[in-house]
């Protein structure tokens, strides 16, 4: 039996110190500073003027901010409505034991996630190009009446973003759901089948409740990710710095970037950032409230 010397009381703090220092320098202080900035007008950190709640009051009447909020909300809802069901459908398809080449399909569906959003943005901007893009070229070749100048990107801003986002993220969501499906107890499914439940009833009453916690997490991740929309519109609508035609692609984060880093108004950008933070916190709290019974049962 080995004897161990007692650690001095400050030993844990010594080990925590590197993290605490880094967190204080790069996490806590920037948060505090950005909160202070939200009440200032700045021209760089050296030239600042305290303006009280002016930045927040201006936000309330800023048409560009509200356009950004509207676009972000539509994108979030669209992403949620499209992505989770499609991911679930793909996961159910790949979960069939009789399906051949499951590993290959998994790789194919997951691969866009690996390449990243910038690459996906570039690919879609080429695919959806008016006259020379692959989509219009193929459609015009197949259907002579198809307009080769069909304005996918300019005329259908949100659908273009949603399709690109779906292609980018559906594989990621699918892999989570597939893992959850593989953990659904087989004996329960067998018992339901013996009791005469058809495929839909087995899915509705056995599979779905079993994978519900994973769906909940995916919904939360999807909403949080969609609210931070930036890179896809920034690439697809690079000509207009991510705004798109008539600001139809302008998201909250794009507007934050433009005000902070193109117009140099760090105070206003901080105010936008804090509004986005409050929205995200409210959504997270709402999620916790909705799942409180499951948490209690666990």
């Amino acid at each position, binding site marked *: 039996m080995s004897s161990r010397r007692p650690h001095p009381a400050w030993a844990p703090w010594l080990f925590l110190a590197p993290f605490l220092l880094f967190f204080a320098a790069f996490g806590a202080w920037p948060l505090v500073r950005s909160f202070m900035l939200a009440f200032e007008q700045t021209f760089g950190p050296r030239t600042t003027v305290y303006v009280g709640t002016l930045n927040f009051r201006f936000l309330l009447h800023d*048409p560009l901010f509200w356009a950004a909020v509207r676009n972000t909300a539509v994108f979030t809802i669209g992403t949620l409505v499209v992505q989770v069901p499609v991911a679930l459908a793909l996961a159910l398809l790949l979960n069939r034991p009789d399906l051949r080449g499951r590993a290959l399909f998994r790789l194919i569906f997951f691969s866009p996630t690996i390449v990243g959003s910038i690459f996906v943005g570039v690919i879609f901007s080429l695919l959806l190009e008016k006259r020379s893009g692959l989509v219009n070229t193929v459609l015009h070749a197949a259907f002579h009446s198809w307009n080769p100048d069909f304005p996918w990107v300019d005329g259908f801003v949100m659908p273009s973003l949603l399709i690109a986002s779906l292609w980018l993220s559906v594989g990621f969501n699918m892999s989570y759901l597939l893992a959850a499906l593989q953990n659904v107890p087989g004996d329960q499914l067998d018992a339901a089948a013996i009791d005469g439940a058809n495929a839909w009833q087995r899915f509705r009453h056995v599979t779905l409740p079993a994978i519900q916690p994973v769906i909940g997490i995916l919904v939360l991740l999807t909403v949080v990710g969609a609210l931070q929309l930036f890179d896809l519109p920034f690439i697809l609508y690079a000509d207009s710095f991510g705004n798109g*035609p008539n600001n139809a692609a302008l998201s909250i984060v794009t507007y934050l970037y433009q005000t902070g880093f193109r117009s140099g108004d760090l105070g206003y950008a901080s105010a936008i950032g804090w509004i986005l933070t409050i929205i995200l916190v409210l959504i997270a709290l709402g999620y916790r409230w909705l799942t409180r019974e499951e948490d209690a049962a666990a």
Partner: protein
Amino acid sequence: MKSFFAGIVRTLSPGISLVLGLGIISAVIVALLPLQPRGGIEIWLGDGNHANLYRALAPEWNRRHPDLPLTVSLISGPALQSRMLSGFYSGTPLPDLIEVERGQIGQVFAGPLQDVGFVDLTDLLARDGLAHEMDSASYSPWTSRGRIFGLPRGAHPVMLAYRSDLVEAAGIDVKQIETWDDYFRLMRPLLQDLDGDGYIDRYPLTISLTNASFSEIFLIQGGGGYFDGMGNPLLNSDANVRIVARLATWYAGPGRVIGDINMYTGAGLRLLREGYAVAIPSADWYVGNLPVTLPSLAGKIKLMPLPAWERGGRRTSANGGTMIGVTKASKHPEIAWELAKFLYFSPVIARQLYDLTHIVSPVKSTWGASYYDRPEPYFCGQPVGRLLQQAIPDIPPRPSSPYLSSAVQLVNSVITQLMAITDRQGYVRPEQAAGDARRLLDEAQHTLLDQIHRNVFQAQAIP
């Protein structure tokens, strides 16, 4: 303290103590290492062609200033902007001189005039008798609240580059074109559905309306624009209303005559090559790019002056641009100013820059140079340099503002909305769209003024 270290040694294993000790020692050594003092004069820039030209001139400069040798640092555009703004805002290291593109300059002027990170050159230009040596409009993008902060690299006149093979095959004489109305009337035969599928495959003019710079080309040519010389927004000016209404009816509705491609992309270049576009507005630097990006069009492209908005009107515009400025962080501002003059007023560099890029110098004394008269086979033997140079005196000013990008977005948004209305209402004549253009531009002006008035640093200048 002694017990603290003893405690550490007792608590940690010998190996971890050794790693920790080495880490602390190396950190201390690195912290104590003396910084290499930056010697000489340094320029940051983002253009490879400019960098090569300046590096080639470094030996001459170094011979004159052996104690202050020249260092040219080529930095990519976004990194250059970030480092420049960090330096201006927070005092991080900056060079003596920076070359900045037009899209990067607005933010530099956002604060109080005395906090602009570049040296005010207005008095230096007057002192050295250089105030009128350059084309005056070329200073406008680098001027804020009446003070000049940079020397312009090029004049950047805009002409119309057109497919002479297609135009001449159609029997069209471009000499008969004076106005845009003439242009679209005479070029009408080139508005073609080539494959009979019911869709237009060739447009007399092609621009990308989502690309911000195109609206500015047309607005300033027609006497409109975004700001006046003191930074006051002019979005709802009569000229803007007239031009925006015209653009909408060119671009949408039953009378559409303009194709939409982004000529800065590979896809856009391909469509130019394939004849989807008959003509594109082209600044000097874009003219210089054409032989490189579209070599197969050699002998099939010519330049002509932009058609005017009305008879006797302006036949050119301006697009793009770069300036050089002396930073306030420079330890040798007078020498840096001397270098700026050396690089920007040099007839040798003006010629080399033209040969390399077709950028024409705004320095008036270079305008008579014979290299501008050289016939160019790519452009069917036209003396392209002379055509561009002759357009310079007519270039309209392009006043700068920290709100330029906002103004551009707002006007582009107006054009997009007006195009939708034009499509819906079936407008053909600009007068039909003028009422909607006025309303939308009034709203845009109101939005922009709200933004500007919120800026306590700018509000003093804007009534």
